[in-house]
């Protein structure tokens, strides 16, 4: 990842953060726009989860990885502590690979 990409992401992010404190007195953000922005973030995150869990390059990632993510997701739904969620996901994938599942 080139330094310029990090700087651009940082500058754009700071601009999103600074707009409110600078313009807060003169401008009000419409509610539909607020909802759209937070919904778009949730949708993009879920897509990232799906792509990262299921695909590798342009093909299928194999069964071990999505199985691990499913186990972690189920634990997160049951409000398990965060470290347990991540370790359980990685361990499931590791064990499945150990017994020969790709």
């Amino acid at each position, binding site marked *: 990842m080139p330094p310029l990409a*990090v700087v651009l992401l940082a500058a754009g992010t700071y601009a*999103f*953060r*600074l707009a409110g*404190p600078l313009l807060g007195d003169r401008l009000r953000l419409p509610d539909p726009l607020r909802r759209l922005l937070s919904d778009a*973030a949730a949708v993009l995150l*879920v897509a990232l989860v*799906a792509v990262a869990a299921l*695909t590798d390059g342009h093909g299928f990632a194999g069964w071990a990885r999505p199985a691990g993510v499913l186990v972690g997701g189920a634990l997160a739904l049951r409000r398990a502590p965060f470290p347990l969620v991540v370790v359980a996901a990685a361990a499931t*994938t590791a064990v499945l690979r150990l017994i020969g599942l790709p």
Partner: protein
Amino acid sequence: MFTIRDMRSFWRTLGPGTLRDIALVCAADAIVGASFGAIAVSGGLDPWVPVAMSLLVFAGGAQFAAVGVVLAGGGPAAAVAAGLVLNARLLPFGFAVADALGSRWWTRLPGAHLIMDEAVAFAMRHDDPRRRRDVFWTCGLALFACWNAGVAAGVAAGRAIGDTGALGLDAAFPTVLLALVLPSLASPGVRRAALTGAGVAVAATPFLPAGLPVLLAPAGLLAAARRRRRTMPGDATPGDATPEET
């Protein structure tokens, strides 16, 4: 400047309950930060990348997103775009807590960098302007310290890890993101849009360059909005409001 008396009243206005909650969130974020550092470095990125991102971008979801796109073979432009789509949600946060940053430019400029989900959620719990300010700054500064310390520790640990595939670490990245996003999927409308978007992104993966498919996902919002308009003309369901991420 703080005098000793100011400090004492500062801790009193915060209260032990709030301080404990902030400490818990800090601990959780340090662990997320450590996973970010470890995943980025074990995936092959230079150690300065996760460290610089955490200091300058300081937004967990966007950092994971950008690094995820790059590790999947995507270009830097797609990585930056994914991160910025995620961080656009910080725009309304800035309006919500603008008063807590103070009125002088030299508190607003650094304070703006501390705007993120957790500090905003904590500040919004309080109506008293003074308390809001104290809670926002305490939470923001503590999280900045814990997040960056966690990332640095993760970078150090990640360099020591050899075969990441055998350890199942490739499953850790999507799992961290899933745990982060679950609380914001409470509303059926968002869930539907998210599933549509995820389906589109996965289906497009074999055909598009890496990193682009996830950027198609927000189109799922359009499909969901059109469907809502068709089933419930001119009506936004009351239970459909998205809760703040915490």
